[in-house]
Structure formats: structure tokens, C-alpha cells
């Protein structure tokens, strides 16, 4: 029941944080922290991960490691300055020469 209360309160805090007059970066950081706290609570208590053998924790940690890795692997390609749109590509291309 304590876990339920914690999850409920954290959800209310999350929604409240969105409407706070803070910078988007700070809000984003807080939201990610809150979401992971909730996810860990669910896994540890509802899914009994805290009371299981360590094998299961290792299995559960695998996708987290891989997905965080994937996020960073995608990061260089998602730099907004480097994204090529058709319009940008056309303006960069040299005008065709007619001999």
C-alpha cells in the first residue's frame, strides 16, 4: 500500500511539474527522474525484483543498458542543424550548368 501511495503522489507531482514556471530543461530532467523512480518502484515491489535472485535483475537490466546505448548512438544523427530537408538540400546544390 505504501508503494501505491508513492506512485500516486509521484504522478500528481509529475503533472504539477509540467505546469511549473521553470525552464523546459529543468522540467524535463525532473520528469525523467520521477518516471524512473516510479518504474523502479513498480519493478522492485510489484514485480518482486527486490526479493528475487540476481539473475532476474541482470535480465531486467539488459534492455535498459541497450536502450540507453541506442539513445546515445542516435544522438549525433538527430542534431537539428544537420538534418537535411528537401528545401535545404536544393538550396545547397549547385545550379545546373548549361554548356
Amino acid at each position, binding site marked *: 500500500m505504501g508503494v*501505491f501511495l508513492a506512485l500516486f503522489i509521484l*504522478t500528481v507531482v509529475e503533472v504539477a511539474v509540467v505546469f511549473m514556471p521553470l525552464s523546459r530543461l529543468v522540467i524535463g530532467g525532473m*520528469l525523467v527522474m520521477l*518516471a524512473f523512480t516510479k*518504474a523502479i518502484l*513498480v519493478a522492485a515491489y510489484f*514485480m518482486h525484483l527486490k526479493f528475487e535472485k540476481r539473475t532476474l535483475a541482470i535480465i*531486467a537490466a539488459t534492455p535498459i543498458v541497450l*536502450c540507453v546505448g541506442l539513445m546515445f548512438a542516435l544522438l549525433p544523427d538527430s542534431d537539428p542543424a544537420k538534418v537535411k530537408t528537401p528545401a535545404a538540400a536544393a538550396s545547397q546544390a549547385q545550379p545546373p550548368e548549361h554548356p
Partner: protein
Amino acid sequence: MNDEAEAYETPLTPESWGKLGMWVFLAADAMSFGGLLAGYGALRFSSHNWPVPKDALGIQLTAFMTFLLICSSVTMVKALSAVKRGDRKWAAIHLLGTIAGGLSFLGLQAYEWTHLIHEGMTITGNPWGSSLFGTTFFILTGFHGMHVTGGVVYLSVILIQILRGKIGYNPVEIVGLYWHFVDLIWILVFTFVYLL
């Protein structure tokens, strides 16, 4: 020397093969969601005109949906402890509550989708900005909604088996793992798609 007995006693395996199997499946499933979320992040980060989700989507309704799923996780915990005590009736009531929570969630999601589609949000475009906002929204929430649908079917099968007195603690614990995982994923989807 008995090979089979030895295999069961390896320190690397938990007491139930079914549970280990469900955990391996959930790890694989988490990578599906992780891949979709990472793709969503990359698309959003590289976009110049991504809408602010809270201006386009109804956060109050989805916060309530989050609350519903958390409640259904709690009834799942109660159902499992009832099975452990051997109280089949109490377990069935709480499993029914869990199923009702899942169905209400799906109903609200259908209502939300209908509302958004009427506002002009589709897989290919939306009135607020980058068309990928609609694409990623429907794929992520839809993929999760399919998991809830599957969970409701899975829970119903387990409920019927409990009422017939055919199963004990272990299968209920395993369906619980799946259901809590779906709740866990929604916590992440809710945060990244609706709030962030």
C-alpha cells in the same frame, strides 16, 4: 548422476521456469518499447516544429488513465496474496477488478483517440506542427494499448482457470509480472509522450 536434477539446482535459475521465461520475454518486449522510444526521441530532438504535447493532448485525462493502471496493479497484488492464502473467491474478485481497470483504460484511450482524430490528428499529420508528432503518438500509445488488450485476454483466461480451481500461485504470479510491466511501460510513455 542425474542431469535433470542438477539443471534445476543451478544457482543461475530462479525456482520457476515459467517466471524466468516471462522475465526473458519482458526483457525482449522492453527492447521493442525502448527502440520505439529511442526513435521517438531522435525524431523529436531533430525536429524544428515539434508541438508542446500538453497543449495538444489532454493531460488530465491521461493522468487519470495512469491512476487507473496503478490501481489495477494494486488489485493484481491483492489477487496474488489472496491466491497465496488459498482464498479463491477474494482472488477472483480482485482479478476481475484488474480486468475492469484494463478495460476502462482501453475505453478511455479509445475516447481520447476519437477526440484527437476529430481534431485532425492522424498518423500522417496534425494541426499543431511536425506530422511525426501524430505518427509517433499513435504508434507508441497504440503499441501499448495492444499490450493492455493482450493483458486483459491473458487475465481473463487466468481468472477462468482460478474459478475452475485448476491453477495455483505460480501462473497468477506470472500474469502479474506481465500486467505490472504494462503499467511500468505506461509510466514511461505517459512521461515521454504526454508530459515532456
